[in-house]
């Protein structure tokens, strides 16, 4: 009994997050505006953070936490930089 609940819910969550990554990739390719693509990249990285954490639980290792933290920071900076570029045509004013 014990262990099977966890493995099934882990498989469910991994399937859901993978499907979510495919959906945000669809929005990234489809567009239509550049703000849509920025939002799609932002969502994609948030989904990838969830995938990394679920992979860490599945493998029972804590090695991947730092990569998830780095990805969260880089994704935020990238989103703000893209938006600043669209707003001003310049990132560092």
């Amino acid at each position: 009994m014990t262990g099977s609940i966890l493995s099934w819910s882990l498989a469910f969550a991994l399937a859901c997050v993978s499907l979510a990554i495919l959906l945000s990739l669809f929005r990234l390719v489809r567009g239509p505006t550049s703000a849509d693509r920025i939002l799609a990249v932002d969502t994609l990285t948030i989904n990838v953070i969830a995938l990394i954490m679920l992979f860490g639980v599945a493998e029972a290792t804590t090695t991947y936490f730092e990569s998830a933290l780095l990805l969260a920071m880089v994704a935020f900076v990238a989103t703000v930089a893209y938006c600043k570029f669209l707003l001003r045509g310049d990132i560092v004013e």
Partner: protein
Amino acid sequence: MSLAAEILIAALLVFGGAFTLVGSWGLARLPSLMTRLHGPTKATTLGVGACLIASMIYFPVSGHSWSAHELLITIFLLLTAPISANMIAKAHLHRQGHGIDANPTDDIVSGLPAPPDGGDWATFQGGANGPRLPPSARGD
């Protein structure tokens, strides 16, 4: 690992996975950018937070040492999601208001009310593509 902890972790994982999927489904299906912003900023952040909390419960219960990494990531995501959503909405308003993007959405071009003092919205002023600010507003 006790059965109660396992059921709690499994419930959080299912909750998180479902919310992540709903958020990205909203991103793919909703009709315009202002509506699409809702899915990722609310549902996906909540789903990722649930996954991270499940991981934070899983590792101490299964014999690993406790660490604050997941809590750090959760707090960071919850702090930055509204800021990035605000920036995306501002960039969208700016581009639609200037007619830079080819297909106007959200009725922004005709729908933004004019500010009362005869100026323009702050997001449309200055920058490389917009008109220059008056000298009093520039501060020089």
